[in-house]
């Protein structure tokens, strides 16, 4: 059980973590998400007592980390895989950590076996690959067989086998009743591993809810509509009709339309009334990645832009088509559907369906999502203007 109350960290005039309060419960994998520089690692370091918070407190099982009688036996942490002395062998590295908290030396060989580093135990860790270093860090975290585990970006540099292993490891650790807190900037990875999500951006809490609630509250369903490719005027006609009816229409790369804000039967009716034939009308649910992107797009510190190569382009040969832009690149809001309107959410078929099948009683599921829906509305306000660019 990790509990943060009003956690704040200020570096000079930069507020890295801003009044963060959350709880991480045992028996579940809790994902800790945020863009680069959003304060994930700083929060992790404050949990582990490495950094002193400017304000607020964070406790593990009711105690600040630095007051735990034998910290590695209660909390295991993988902060960054490079935090080892490269000149020391893997086994000696783990041995000195084991001795520090009175863990028997044979436990070292056990965890070396668990992470699969038995063959290189006597090798100096300087020669380790990123993935091997990550495994060594995980071994150090598991050494004390603790009830609380923190992993900062555990799958960095791991091969597919290693990623799968880490996923299963975290799930099995949580199934044993431990508290597992995993930070990542990869939403897709968290979608597969985590049960619960804590999302921060610019040091502030953006969401604290289960993965299912997160998708339901943040990802709008959308309809993919395709008019006959041979008749582009039909597509324009449908676009204007749907827009008049209050829908939000975004063209897709292959000529289809992405429509939000209208249920599928209504789109079909409108198309019929306008005399537009449809080749495709399909419901889609935005992925967790998209939900996350929309939530954090306002809070991204380091944003990529399209490589303009201004003045460096060769003149196009006569008659050649300029290359089509890659979807998403340099256009932050391109793939971002507009936010679910809170009052309309019940009428949208996809969201209604997913919240209905979440298998949870409706009342508690609605409860935590309410504040987040409000906070999610803020970034979304700017989405149309970014689309216009």
């Amino acid at each position, binding site marked *: 059980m990790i509990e943060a109350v009003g956690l704040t960290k200020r570096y000079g005039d930069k507020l890295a973590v801003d009044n963060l309060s959350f709880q991480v419960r045992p028996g579940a994998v809790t994902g800790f998400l945020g863009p680069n520089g959003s304060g994930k690692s700083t929060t992790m370091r404050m949990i*582990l007592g490495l950094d002193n918070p400017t304000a607020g407190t964070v406790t593990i099982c009711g105690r600040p980390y630095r007051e735990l009688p034998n910290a590695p036996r209660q909390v295991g942490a993988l902060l960054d895989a490079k*935090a080892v*002395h490269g000149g020391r062998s893997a086994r000696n590295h783990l041995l000195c950590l084991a001795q520090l908290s009175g863990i028997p030396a044979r436990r070292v060989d056990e965890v070396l076996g668990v992470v699969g580093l038995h063959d290189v135990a006597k090798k100096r860790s300087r020669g380790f690959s990123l993935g091997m270093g990550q495994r060594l860090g995980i071994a150090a975290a598991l050494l004390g067989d603790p009830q609380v585990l923190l992993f900062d970006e555990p799958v960095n540099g791991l091969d597919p086998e290693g990623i799968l292993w880490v996923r299963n490891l975290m799930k099995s650790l949580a199934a044993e009743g431990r508290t597992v807190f995993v930070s990542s900037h990869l939403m897709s990875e968290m979608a597969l591993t985590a049960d619960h999500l804590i999302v921060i951006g610019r040091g502030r809490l953006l969401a604290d809810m289960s993965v299912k609630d997160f998708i339901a509250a943040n990802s709008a369903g959308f309809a993919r509509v395709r008019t006959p490719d041979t008749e582009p005027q039909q597509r324009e006609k449908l676009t204007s009709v749907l827009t008049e009816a209050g829908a939000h229409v975004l063209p897709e790369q292959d000529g289809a339309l992405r429509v939000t804000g209208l249920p599928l039967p209504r789109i079909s009716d409108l198309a019929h009334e306008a005399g537009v034939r449809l080749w495709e009308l399909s419901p889609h649910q935005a992925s967790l990645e998209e939900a996350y992107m929309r939530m954090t797009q306002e809070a991204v510190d380091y944003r990529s832009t399209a490589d303009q190569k201004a003045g460096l382009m060769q003149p196009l040969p006569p008659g050649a088509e300029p290359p089509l832009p890659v979807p998403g690149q340099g256009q932050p809001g391109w793939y971002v559907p507009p936010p679910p309107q809170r009052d309309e959410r019940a009428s949208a078929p996809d969201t209604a369906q997913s919240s209905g099948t979440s298998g949870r009683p409706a009342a508690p599921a609605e409860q935590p999502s309410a504040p987040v829906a409000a906070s999610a509305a803020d970034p979304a306000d700017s989405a149309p203007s970014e689309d216009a660019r």
Partner: protein
Amino acid sequence: MSTPQTPLPQQAAPPSWESGYTSPIPVVRAHLGHAIVSEWTKIRSVRSTVWTLGIYMLIVLGMGALIAWAIVRVPSEFHGSENPLAFGFFGLLVGSVCIITLGVLTVASEYGTGMIRTTMTACPSRIRVLAAKAVVFFLVAFTTTLFSAGLVALVHTALLDGTGARQPTGEEWLRGTLGISLYLAMLGLLSLAVGAILRHSAGAITLMIGVVLAPLVLAAFMQVESLEKLRDALFDYSIPSQMAVFYANTGATLRDSGPSGWDSLWIILGMTAAAFAVACVLLQKRDV
């Protein structure tokens, strides 16, 4: 992990958040003893320790051997009433650079590699980590110096025995082996504390070598009459002079001013204690 996981009573029970998981490995209360054992593993498992101590012993024993060779070649030069152990001084003076380096590296290399974050996570009591490092380093430095200096002293007295030089007194033996070893180990501890304050290997080593050499260099350039007192003080209390005091003749000091007897040891003890106090305060206050 390796414990059989098939029965999971935690799962069967309703999620009781307070109980969580309990490890089958018995939990002991961590104390300084654990930290000392851990630091011993650390210091012996990196090559830089082996190299610095190896070079240190090579310098002390090598220079001792060189002087022994000179004694054998021209024994008449070494007559007189001077302390026969004094020839061990040169090797230890040069070798002090190695002790300083090892002392600084014991702490600062952890900051350089990032290992300190792992260490401080595994042992949140930062003072305990620093204390364990100090104890282990002190014992290593003291033992190595005592062995090397003792061996050199034995060889020199044995060689000088036939040349008419006097035998060192018991007090001289004590100061020339135990005293100087304690002094050098304390000098290393001072370096260790400076390493913990600066958290940067190269910076701390440079500063410590400066502390050893700068007073002598400065004194050499102070030829003005008005600065005479300062010059003498710099000269008397420079670290090489303090080391030389351990080889002074019993009872008779060459100079009226400056430290004598065991004074040097108390001076370095005070400096080290002050540096450790600063290091402890900073360690508690700063983010790792």
